[in-house]
């Protein structure tokens, strides 16, 4: 079906994302996607680490020195936050899949629990890494 531009212009549009007030539930949902995409890109770092170790000692040392320089460490810190968030919120998703936490109140409570869990897991992992 073809339509002229004039007819198309008169059609009502569904509200765009920017019309809605950001809510905790919707913000956590978009965070889940964003962290997922970041982690998908992070597979490159995992691959670099493994391939370098299989290639040679000097290739491994290059990867290690990248990981321990400030930019590399910052990137790994970002990936660790994304990982723990995606992990925690993924568990929340699995509860939804089993039919729990659908009430608005419990969806919010679980959302705050996800944020708390992200902070605690990130802090715990970096505490162990730095104390080690």
């Amino acid at each position, binding site marked *: 079906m073809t339509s002229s531009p004039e007819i198309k212009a008169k059609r009502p549009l569904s509200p765009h994302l920017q019309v809605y007030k950001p809510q905790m539930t919707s913000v956590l949902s978009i965070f889940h996607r964003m962290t997922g995409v970041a982690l998908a890109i992070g*597979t490159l770092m*995992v691959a670099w680490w493994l391939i370098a170790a299989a290639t040679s000692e000097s290739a491994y040392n290059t990867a290690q020195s990248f990981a321990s320089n400030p930019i590399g460490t910052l990137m790994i810190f970002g990936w660790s936050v994304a990982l723990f968030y995606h*992990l925690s919120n993924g568990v929340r998703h699995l509860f939804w899949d089993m039919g729990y936490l659908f009430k608005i109140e419990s969806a919010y409570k679980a959302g705050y629990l996800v944020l708390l869990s992200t902070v605690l897991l990130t802090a715990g*992992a970096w505490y162990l*890494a730095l104390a*080690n």
Partner: protein
Amino acid sequence: MKLKWNNDPMKSPLGRARGLGSAKEGANHWMSQRITAIANIPLVLWLVFSIVSLKGASHAQFTDWLAHPLNAILMILFIISTFYHAKLGSQVVTEDYIHNEGLKFVKLIAQKLFFFGLGIACIFSILKIAL
């Protein structure tokens, strides 16, 4: 951009609609995403713990660690489960946000090849160190 087969003037409306419906693999995609998600939970926690304890490890220390069968097996399982999960997730993101049919087509294939190729490279590297 419209793909060639979408605006063929010689096609009847029924002909156009055929093959454009459900690909009948949605349930499998959904279930695979959940199963890999469940597998990822212990695998990711194991990897985080391992990375923390391997911090600053020399090449010899790292390859010794990965040569242990348990570590090599868990690492291969981690690669398969997370890379497959990433492939499934990024496919949905592309389908939702890329509206240009041609670009979507190319991006979906590129993502599949990316995760498959990178995953195989990782598994080969693990085996080379472990065997």
